[in-house]
């Protein structure tokens, strides 16, 4: 069967290559590859590096717009934020390593995304993350979570980049496959943006940073396979991070970039030296000739195969203008870094690897990158969908009394994430205008009046119940969060976490989710400038919920107009924007109070969503509203409570209308906990109320005054009937300490 005579079937399998792919390699080369070349192809053609299963779908996403400076295909995307500046950002996953070795897996994920940003010539100014774990009741899950959070903190804090927000969710399906998605944003002068390109025959290629070891060999291949009972044996494929080295690299590289002696630069992330050399060559239409014996090594006896495939962290590859070597070397020397001249740019488009001068691999760059296989994998609608989408709530009344409200406040998904974000330095660089947990993350841009808001959002349960709508809702929620801060959404990045794409049901989920992202981004005018796909998130054949996570960046032209979710004063009018419908399907309420994970996620009308977001941004700009918070998990009741938390005890007195169309006994529950999209709670001074209502009417956004801030209590009546009445400080303490209690319990 196999066309291979040099390599047996077991070798090909170990490299994750199918017989068809091997045949393709032989065709590209015109001969059989040697073992080093086989290794190089295996990592470049892995799912992680080649996007071979996802590429046909990702091509359909909107990636251009008037502010887009750099779309997908570079180390990160970039959008114009005015005054000659660009916001450079991307989200990336480090799921598989974070299960195997939580601290280092998460830490190196942060290190990788930071390198992607400063590689573009941008100074990283903010980090965020989106984390998903199994049930927090499971001690193994808590141990994993502690490791992940400490790893993120350990790396980000050392780097001096604030972690300004994010999300943490819990769901049984993530027990064996936690999701660790990390987002980084940097600021660059538009004219100073640098690309990962090699050009100019004879220009020297430099290697800078940590020495190469045997860690992480085949990390990209690991991330392209499912887990089974023996996954712990894969620990050597997880790398160890050194944030101090990265901090030196960051400062030194930014200094080199200022000198104009640089042609291009790329970090060595997944697939290490192999990926950086072949991608830089391919982008510049050039070849690269590298001698691995000149690569700094920290272990003895490493083979060219190992050097090329190592994923040791904190390494960069630079192409420098010939004649300017001295300047560049001098800057690295200042930072006590050694820049090694490992090779040169050639004009033949080939990746040529030597060992002490002798050629050990020679592959056209194009074969590794542009000509990597692309699969249009079969899709099939999963059978579970029809069943889980049916939700019958008739025949018994809902639990609507205060008990359900308190149960929700303490639910790990809703409870304060203080235990998590307190471990992150979220204030370093003195730009953070909205602290974590108070809304979207907002950082000012020093030297301007401007600020950037950012949010990362996803809802695995929604996407499980309907991948298309779940993905749309993720885009809408991230954009709405940014709009609630007063920022106009200007760009997005996506992290797509799914199971094994070779199963048609998973591929169907993936295809539908990408369609959802596309439609929502088109409807809300948010170009996607890059991102990452993480497939094979399965353990023993059980996949995670399909989980698209979306990061949206928004621009605030006057940082003085930034809003947080917190009520600003007592005696202000509380206005609900948008409409509450009978939409409990997939809600946190159903899960927490009723133990049900069924139904269809809320409807999303993109026109209504757009109108709401524009109303929020416009009202913030004119200071017509004083706080804004979107309605998400836990519905209106939880949204209101969150608006009262962190205010020093400003309460509220609110009356909301029962929801029509709900089954008998459920109209109160729907009014309080329905997760209808396109809603926000805003506050406005009594004097400004009628103008705000008129503005909403003109924008076509339903708006209703529902109550007043103040009184020190959380008071909600539904249609005049009292339902919730609690002291703010008591409810707040419950909400604020619920998560950390799980960890203290263990310590006791």
């Amino acid at each position, binding site marked *: 069967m196999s066309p291979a005579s040099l390599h047996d079937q077991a070798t090909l399998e170990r490299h994750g290559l199918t017989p068809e792919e091997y045949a393709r390699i032989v065709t590209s080369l015109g001969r059989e590859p040697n073992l080093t070349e086989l290794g190089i192809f295996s990592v470049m053609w892995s799912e992680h590096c080649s996007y071979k299963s996802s590429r046909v779908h990702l091509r359909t996403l909107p990636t251009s717009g008037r502010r887009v400076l750099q779309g997908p295909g570079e180390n990160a995307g970039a959008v114009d934020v005015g005054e000659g500046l660009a916001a450079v950002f991307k989200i990336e996953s480090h799921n598989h390593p974070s299960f195997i070795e939580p601290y280092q897996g998460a830490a190196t994920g942060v290190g990788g995304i930071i390198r992607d940003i400063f590689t573009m010539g941008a100074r990283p100014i903010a980090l965020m993350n989106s984390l998903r774990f199994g049930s927090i009741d499971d001690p193994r899950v808590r141990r994993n979570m502690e490791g992940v959070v400490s790893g993120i903190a350990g790396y980000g804090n*050392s780097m001096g980049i604030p972690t300004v927000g994010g999300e943490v969710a819990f769901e049984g399906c993530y027990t064996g496959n936690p999701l660790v998605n990390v987002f980084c944003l940097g600021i660059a002068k538009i004219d100073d943006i640098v690309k990962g390109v090699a050009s100019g025959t004879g220009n020297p290629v430099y290697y800078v940073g940590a020495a190469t070891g045997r860690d992480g060999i085949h990390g990209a291949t690991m991330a392209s396979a499912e887990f089974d009972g023996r996954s712990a044996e894969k620990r050597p494929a997880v790398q160890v991070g050194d944030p101090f080295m990265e*901090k030196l690299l960051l400062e030194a590289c930014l200094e080199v970039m200022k000198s104009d002696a640089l042609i291009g630069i790329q970090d060595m992330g997944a697939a290490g030296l192999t990926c950086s050399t072949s991608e830089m060559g391919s982008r510049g239409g050039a070849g690269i000739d590298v001698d691995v014996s000149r690569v700094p090594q920290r272990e003895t006896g490493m083979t060219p195969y190992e050097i090329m495939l190592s994923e040791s962290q904190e390494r960069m590859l630079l192409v420098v203008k010939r004649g300017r070597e001295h300047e560049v070397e001098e800057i690295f020397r200042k930072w006590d870094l050694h820049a090694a001249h490992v090779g040169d740019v050639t004009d033949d488009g080939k990746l040529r690897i030597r060992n002490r001068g002798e050629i050990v691999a020679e592959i056209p760059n194009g074969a590794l990158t542009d000509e990597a296989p692309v699969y249009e994998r079969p899709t099939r609608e999963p059978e579970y969908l029809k069943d889980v989408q049916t939700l019958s709530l008739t025949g018994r009344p809902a639990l609507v009394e205060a008990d359900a409200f308190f149960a929700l406040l303490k639910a790990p998904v809703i409870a304060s994430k203080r235990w998590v974000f307190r471990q992150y330095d979220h204030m370093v660089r003195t730009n953070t205008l909205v602290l974590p947990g108070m809304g979207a993350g907002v950082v000012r841009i020093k030297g301007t009046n401007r600020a950037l808001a950012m949010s990362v959002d996803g809802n695995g349960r929604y996407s499980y119940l309907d991948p298309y709508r779940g993905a749309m809702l993720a885009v809408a929620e991230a954009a709405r969060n940014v709009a609630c801060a007063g920022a106009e959404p200007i760009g997005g990045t996506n992290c797509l976490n799914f199971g094994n794409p070779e199963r048609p049901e998973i591929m169907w989920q993936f295809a539908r989710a990408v369609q959802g992202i596309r439609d929502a981004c088109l409807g809300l005018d948010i170009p996607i400038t890059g991102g990452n796909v993480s497939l094979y998130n399965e353990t023993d054949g059980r996949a995670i919920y399909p989980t698209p996570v979306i990061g949206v960046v928004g621009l605030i032209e006057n940082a003085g107009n930034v809003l947080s979710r917190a009520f600003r004063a007592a005696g202000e009018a509380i206005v609900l924007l948008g409409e509450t419908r009978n939409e409990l399907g997939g809600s946190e309420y159903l899960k927490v109070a009723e133990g049900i994970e069924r139904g269809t996620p809320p409807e999303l009308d993109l026109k209504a969503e757009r109108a709401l977001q524009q109303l929020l941004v416009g009202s913030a700009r004119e200071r017509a509203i004083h706080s804004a918070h979107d309605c998400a998990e836990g519905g209106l009741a939880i949204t209101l409570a969150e608006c009262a938390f962190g205010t020093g005890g400003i309460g509220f007195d609110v009356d909301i209308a029962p929801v029509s169309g709900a089954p008998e006994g459920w109209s109160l529950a729907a009014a309080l906990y329905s997760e209808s999209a396109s809603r926000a709670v805003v506050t406005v001074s009594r004097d400004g109320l009628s103008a705000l209502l008129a503005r909403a009417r003109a924008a076509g956004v339903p708006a209703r005054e529902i109550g007043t801030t103040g009184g020190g209590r959380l008071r909600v009546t539904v249609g005049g009937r009292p339902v919730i009445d609690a002291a703010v400080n008591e409810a707040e303490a419950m909400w604020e300490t619920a998560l950390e209690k799980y960890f203290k319990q263990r310590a006791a």
Partner: protein
Amino acid sequence: MKFAVVVFPGSNCDHDAYHAAKDVLGQDAEFVWHKDAELRGADVVILPGGFSHGDYLRTGAIARFSPVMNAVRAFAAAGGPVLGICNGFQILLEAGMLPGAMLRNRELKFRCEHVHIRVEQIDTPFTFACRPQQVLRIPIAHGEGNYFITPDDLHRLETNRQVIFRYTDAAGSPADEANPNGSLGSIAGICNEGRNVLGLMPHPERACEAVLGSTDGLVIFESVVAALAAGALSPAGSAQG
């Protein structure tokens, strides 16, 4: 007035201290690289926060050997005001310019949040403009801020009135719950016997602008400007002759 902000490899609050001195206070400020041997006519020296040398070995343990530290020692010996913030405090401890040592926070976790500290003494250049017992709301961000000293040395520290800041609640009471890291005696900051070298774990440079949530840190920088202007301490330059 000129502030020197020393940059060690791994410093990451250097820009923040510089920004507070230059952009918020409107004073002169300059970065000084750790390999430099001179402070170039600075009136005030700040050792900023961060992770100098990655906190490897022990926090501040490697930074104390940097060439610039000889200049900092001489500057302090001549009476010049030196402020160590967070990692800068840790470096001053390792350099023997302040007594005591740091342990990991008692909960063994990094902690970043606003805390309250009470100003214990106002006869230092960095608390010169404070009110006695003034309570300041300032952020912390550290994993090793659990101050430790032997009982005898603690006694000496207290007798000499070298404890300058203590963690308290908002009302100024040093309750154990208000101590974020387990520091002995709720100590947040101390000075040397000469009172011109001060180290503290909280970050006053992060609390200098209303948009960042607090302006309580400003008084620490304003103090040193006022103290120098009032001739309340002899600037290093003039002392050196």
